[in-house]
């Protein structure tokens, strides 16, 4: 099993969700996060005083998937979330040892 984590632009979130649903993904965890990458933050001006805002708002999606599906899902996220401009985000995949469904106690593949 794999954990696919994607950090994307907030306005791309709906598109990504629809594409993943079409592919057959049944659930995910989504959080509003902030951070920065190579693009750094942005500048805001209040009464003439400039503030460097270091953190940019992003959406983080976490999905636990079968090993076989991981590559396809990464492909879908990258294709859908891409605008070609700076700040599109990152996707990464990490191995998962165990998954348990809290309601039934099902383990691993049966819990996905």
């Amino acid at each position, binding site marked *: 099993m794999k954990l696919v984590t994607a950090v994307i632009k907030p306005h791309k979130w709906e598109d990504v969700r629809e594409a993943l649903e079409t592919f057959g993904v049944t659930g995910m965890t989504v959080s509003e996060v902030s951070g920065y990458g190579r693009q750094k933050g942005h500048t*805001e*001006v*209040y*009464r*003439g*005083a400039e*503030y460097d*805002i270091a953190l940019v708002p992003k959406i983080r999606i976490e999905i636990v998937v079968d090993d076989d599906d991981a590559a396809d899902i990464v492909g879908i996220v990258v294709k859908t979330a891409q605008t070609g401009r700076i700040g599109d985000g990152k996707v990464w995949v990490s191995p998962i040892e165990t998954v348990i469904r809290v309601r039934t106690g099902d383990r691993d593949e049966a819990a996905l």
Partner: protein
Amino acid sequence: MTSSMLLDLAPLVADPTGLDSGDTAWLLAASALVLLMAPGLALFYGGMVRSKSVLNMMMMTFGSLAVISIVWVLVGYSIAFGDDLGLGLVGNPTQYAGLSQLMSEDSNGDSAVPLILFAVFQGLFCVITGALVSGAIADRARFGSWMVFVSIWTLVVYAPIAHWIFDFSAGDHVGGWMANNLEVIDFAGGTAVEITSGASGLALALVLGRRIGFGKDPMRPHNLTLVMLGAGLLWFGWFGFNAGSALGANQTAAVVFTTTLLAGAAGALGWLGVERLRDGHATSLGAASGLVSGLVAITPSCASVSPVGAIVMGAVAGVFCALAVGLKYRFGYDDSLDVVGVHLVGGLIGTFGIGLLATAAAPTGVDGLFYGGGVDQLGRQLLGGGAVFVYAFVVSGIIGLVVDKAMGFRIDEEHELSGIDLVIHAETAYDLHATAGARSGSGVLGGSAASREEER
């Protein structure tokens, strides 16, 4: 309506004491409008601070409203409008103490409005002036110390200045030196309200010192929609402030109403113009700040300029205040919400501007320099404005230092960083966590808060 009720009303129609029902009705309404400026200011200021200190910011305004109203009625009004004790500096503090002397209709003399109403109207001016000062010390002042400061300040700073500038001699009543001897024109409080609040705010900002992280950390306004709503309410209330100062429902009030509208509008455009040219964007905070700047400048001058003069006055204030708010970074004083940049600078522009833009065609009937009146009035305005600045700055600073010495004016560093609302008021303004519901007070640690609630 029964005939007996008609008979009861008859004496009011032909009032032997000279009260005018129309004038009285307008002053009643105008007083309520001035009161509305307090919650307006609370929103204006509250939106500009960070979310961890919005309640404290609003409480400094509401606290001023509560304590100044009472201090004013007990003693403040007498100091401001009692018979002069000599030299035009201060009124007799016991003459109207508690206002019970103004309860009967006979006490009104030949005034067209009840004097007790005039006293309350003037008291609400003091409330706004005191509340304005608090913008200079956002995020870091102990609430109890603020309440003590603003009470003493009402009696020692505001009331004497109000006596100088607003108390006109009439009959055997002797008033203040600026109104009667120097003949400064200040229709609704450019000196007494605006310059006083700015100078007092500057003094307090110096007494309390800079916030931790000033000029380094971003201290962004946490809710600009509150700021916009507050600015709108201030503008609405300002019609009561300025046009109410005509003390009657008459031509002067109507002219003042017009100039007040125009100066606010021009102030917003002036500030936005500077922003657009300098920073590239016309901001909402700039619009709100600009309209207030224009209103500040028209406060003393609203009965002295033409409608076009009001546009010039407002626009000049909008432009110069937009430039002046940057001064605190250059000189390193933390006037957190720009009481100096907006109210002191705007008040000086309005007060001095009378000397230039006044026209004899306006209700005050004096020509300024640009209308062929020479520099005579300008000199009076400069002297009056300067004197109020020096007095308010020095005395407010002394009161601030005494309060700081006696009880401490500033909260601990740790509490300032974590947020003043929680430590001073035991509240947080916003509970927006998804996890905050019936089972939890605020976020992860809400459970312990709920159990303590049950113990009460």
